[in-house]
């Protein structure tokens, strides 16, 4: 596709349920990022992949959050035992390889709005 896609666009979960959020990056982009955007706030970094390797997960708020990118393309952010404070928009972004230039720009998807009741 032409851009980063995310699914579902909207997710409502009952407290305690597990959820999985999917990100399809731009084809050929080796870097993939997840951000969390709470209501009225700017996005905050969660985790970073280079190909299939998760190089930084320092922003994940708790051990209930888990991200994977097993084949270096599609990524899934999983949240176990969701809590109300997990309600936010989860944004995925990707960047091209450094040698291809433009690696400084992150291209964002439309996000998944998670509401935990």
């Amino acid at each position, binding site marked *: 596709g032409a851009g980063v896609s995310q699914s579902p666009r909207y997710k409502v979960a009952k407290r305690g349920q597990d959820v999985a959020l999917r990100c399809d990056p731009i084809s050929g982009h080796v870097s993939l990022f997840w951000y969390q955007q709470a209501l009225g706030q*700017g*996005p905050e*970094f969660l985790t970073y992949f280079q190909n299939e390797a998760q190089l930084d997960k320092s922003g994940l708020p708790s051990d209930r959050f888990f991200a994977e990118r097993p084949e270096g393309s599609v990524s899934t952010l999983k949240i176990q035992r969701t809590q109300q404070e997990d309600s936010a928009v989860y*944004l995925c972004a990707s960047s091209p390889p450094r040698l291809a230039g433009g690696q400084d720009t992150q291209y*964002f*998807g*439309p996000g998944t709005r998670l509401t935990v009741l």
Partner: protein
Amino acid sequence: AQSVTQLDSQVPVFEEAPVELRCNYSSSVSVYLFWYVQYPNQGLQLLLKYLSGSTLVKGINGFEAEFNKSQTSFHLRKPSVHISDTAEYFCAVRGSGAGSYQLTFGKGTKLSVIP
């Protein structure tokens, strides 16, 4: 570590008037600077970026920004706004070193263009 302050949470402006959205940053290392725009229920779209070179950067939709290292600012400007510019604008910073990758965002400024 870096931080970004967007001084105005909301900016109302009349159509065809000029606008400036302010952004200040803090960092102990050299940085790259970005402005993103977010329309309702959409992701972030890059408006412009400063990596190096000329401190005046021109972006899409007629926006421009000027990097001022001494004042640690990167204010966004447009000489004449249109209704379609109504959106939320985010300033972001990233270290310029090879090992830097994560963006640090400000809290955003909501621009409302009044007909």
